[in-house]
């Protein structure tokens, strides 16, 4: 028989660590915002994001994407460290022992609560060695210049690359294959081993869409 008394002995039965009202705490008097562990958060106004895109475009032109991508990688490295520490402390289990669905829920809620839009993972290409990440309502895409012919969420691509590289312990690369700034409904990112994902960049230059790129990536894999 199941003993409820035993179940009740567990000290904390956790819920949503990243619930926005619990995670983000503000103090009107000091004007500071913090997360529930007391770490400082910063708010990026739209106008600042727009200015970053415009400023970089003026300063470094075509290299804007590379600069943002590298910023994203740094950001992602620290983001991963903090995410792992917070989640494993709250749920009292190392990340490696968490179920996939719990980890995924944490990541989704974390992404949303930080105001980065909504994120979802498509593991349908797992067998072929690729992971597709979908985001939408991205504030980075909203502030970026529109219809430039190239995806603009380089910072997010960098974050995802660093995050999943550390999570899997492999050197992964991330290429964005669809972007809200180009009129797509979602931003799509393909993650995989560097040499396998790299060809996607050339196909992207040719103007191929996400489905075609995925099909070709998987075909190259087989061949």
């Amino acid at each position, binding site marked *: *028989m*199941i*003993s*409820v*008394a035993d*179940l*009740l002995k*567990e000290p904390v*039965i*956790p*819920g*949503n660590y990243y*619930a*926005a*009202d*619990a995670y983000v705490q503000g103090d009107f008097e000091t004007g500071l915002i913090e997360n529930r562990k007391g770490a400082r958060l910063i708010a990026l106004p739209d106008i600042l994001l727009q200015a970053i895109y415009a400023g970089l475009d003026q300063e470094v032109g075509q290299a804007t994407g590379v600069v943002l991508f590298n910023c994203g990688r740094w950001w992602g490295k620290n983001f991963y460290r903090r995410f792992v520490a917070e989640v494993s402390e709250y749920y009292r289990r190392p990340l490696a022992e968490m*179920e*996939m*669905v*719990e980890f*995924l*829920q944490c990541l*989704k*809620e974390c992404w949303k609560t930080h105001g980065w839009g909504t994120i979802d993972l498509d593991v349908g290409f797992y067998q072929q060695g690729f992971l597709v990440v979908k985001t939408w309502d991205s504030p980075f895409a909203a502030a970026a210049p529109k219809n430039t012919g190239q995806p603009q969420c380089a910072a997010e691509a960098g974050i995802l690359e660093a995050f999943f590289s550390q999570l899997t312990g492999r050197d992964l690369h991330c290429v964005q294959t669809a972007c809200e700034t180009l009129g797509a409904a979602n931003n799509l990112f393909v993650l995989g081993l560097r040499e396998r994902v790299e060809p996607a960049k050339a196909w992207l230059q040719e103007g191929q869409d996400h489905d075609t790129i995925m099909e070709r990536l998987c075909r190259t894999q087989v061949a």
Partner: protein
Amino acid sequence: MHTELMNLYYKAEENYLSNVDIKVFRHHIESLQQRLSTYEFLRDHELEIFQPVADTLQKKYPTENPQTLEQVLRQAIALLRYAAMAMLLNNPEFLQHRLLEWLTEVVNAHQTQTLWSSCHELLSARLKEMLTEAEQDLILPLLDQAQATLVGLPAVVSVQS
């Protein structure tokens, strides 16, 4: 702080509260007392509430993996805790944000919807045995809200004959 009371405090900035406002205030205070006593009751009777639910659930699903049953029960215990707090705060969104948004995908992934529905029925029935009607009115709608969110079906409204 309850939003309803907060609103009254703001209203009272320049004037005395009107009779109607005082009535509203009194109503909230009384309701708060009832919420608090219901909360205390749920807190102090967690074991008595859940052990019969666990026993019946296990009888109903004898072939189910006990670990899965334990997991559903653990989630149900969490649900009642969060629901009790949401009741105390008079804020159903508390339950939605703090637990349900997170739990829904977990239940989906484990495909434990059927177990959940049974657990919800058993828990509601158990609470009906233990609580007065007024107390039931405070907590049961929150459990129905959870059921509707987690399993995706409209909550069944029970009609008292």
